[in-house]
């Protein structure tokens, strides 16, 4: 009977031994082993045998990449604007033992590290920089936080600022600024257009004025030329008349005067509103000059006859 009790106890011990000694670590986890409470080794994924009663599984660390939401917080920038910022961090436990024993609450530690570093990095920047240099901020945060978490056997792989929200009134002001800048540009462009067009118009007017003046100048030149030519022609005509006078005496003059008189009388007669007109006192002179024309014709006839005779040809007719 005693032997049976002992053997049953032995079976119980064996079962407990198997349960305590055989450890299967799943992929994605690392288990730390403590011998009498002190860390001795880390179990990688797979089947393991530990010494029961002496060794004990300490922490079961998740070795997968982990996402950590950094809660929103208010940050005061260098130019005293208050912005609301939240972020997301990705980290992975690289060294299970250090992550298990070097830091008490890993999540809380990384979260607080990120919060304070976001404040210090963004506090060093003006609002405009904060809004436009996200990538730079992310990189700075990553470098600082990764360095700080290194002793914990944790690698921070990525930190991203999720949302940067300036206060409502600043957003409105930024919108107004943007609008004003666009309007300024539009106004400048418009003014430039007006300037350009008035310059073009003035240039056109100048050009046309120059052309008109040139035209006038040319016309004047030509007119002067014409007058010169006319004067020349008159001079020549006068010369011819003078020659004629020198040749035929007063009768030639009388011819000219006579034709003019007759022309003037014809004009007076053609006038339709005055049928009564006065003849100058010397009207008789007109008749005399007409008679002179007759004399002239006779003289010319005589001269022609004289010219024709020596050749002995047919006498000139009428």
């Amino acid at each position, binding site marked *: 009977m005693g032997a049976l009790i002992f*053997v049953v106890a032995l079976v119980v011990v064996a079962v407990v031994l198997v349960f305590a000694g055989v450890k299967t670590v799943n992929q994605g986890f690392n288990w730390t082993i403590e011998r009498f409470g002190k860390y001795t080794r880390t179990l990688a994924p797979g089947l393991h045998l530990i010494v029961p009663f002496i060794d004990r599984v300490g922490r079961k660390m998740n*070795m997968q990449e982990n996402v950590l939401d950094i809660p929103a917080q208010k940050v005061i920038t260098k130019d005293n604007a208050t912005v609301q910022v939240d972020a997301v961090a990705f980290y992975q436990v690289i060294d299970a033992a250090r992550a298990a024993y070097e830091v008490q609450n890993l999540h809380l530690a990384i979260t607080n590290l990120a919060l304070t570093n976001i404040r210090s990095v963004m506090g060093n920047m003006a609002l405009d920089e904060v809004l436009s240099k996200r990538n730079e901020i992310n990189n700075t945060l990553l470098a600082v936080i990764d360095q700080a978490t*290194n002793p914990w056997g944790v690698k921070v792989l990525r930190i991203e600022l999720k949302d940067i929200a300036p206060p409502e009134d600043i957003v409105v002001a930024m919108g107004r600024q943007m609008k004003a800048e666009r309007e300024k540009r539009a106004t400048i462009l418009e003014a430039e257009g007006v300037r350009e067009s008035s310059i073009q118009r003035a240039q056109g007017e100048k050009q046309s004025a120059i052309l008109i003046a040139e035209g006038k100048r040319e016309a004047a030149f030509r007119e002067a030329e014409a007058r010169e030519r006319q004067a020349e022609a008159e001079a020549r005509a006068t010369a011819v008349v003078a020659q004629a006078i020198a040749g035929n005496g007063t009768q030639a003059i009388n011819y000219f005067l006579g034709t003019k008189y007759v022309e003037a009388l014809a004009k007076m007669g053609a006038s339709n509103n005055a049928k009564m007109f006065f003849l100058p006192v010397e009207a008789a002179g007109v008749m005399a000059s007409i008679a002179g024309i007759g004399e002239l014709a006779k003289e010319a006839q005589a001269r022609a006859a004289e010219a024709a005779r020596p050749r002995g040809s047919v006498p000139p007719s009428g």
Partner: protein
Amino acid sequence: MTIVFWYWWALAAVLLVSEMMLPGVVFLFLAIGAAACGLLLLVAPAAALEFQLFLFAIVAVASAVLLRRSLRRLQGRGDEALNERGKAMIGRTFVLDQPILNGRGRLTLGDGSWIVTGPDMAAGARVRVAAVEGTELKVEPAP
């Protein structure tokens, strides 16, 4: 009630089912112990109950110790770099973007930057990752 070998084999079967249903490789060894007892009864049906239980206890523990190596071989090597970001870097060559001073420096790889340890080198030197210690990469000058 006399115990026949079937009883032990039935227990072994139950334990095997438990092994499949429950996490961890624990019941497998108990099942081996039970199967061994069944085998014993098959050979020597008159064995005492005490001896059977003793055998069960011894075989269960011994199988756990002895089979560990062969089972480990069975689980294969798999992807050693899975979940081990550092191990994936071993053997690869990189260009230092910061010098290694006093045996320590930093190297930007992909998204993150790693602490590198090794002989002092200027930035721009080509290095090969020789080993990984926690979050630090041990590097040596690349040929």
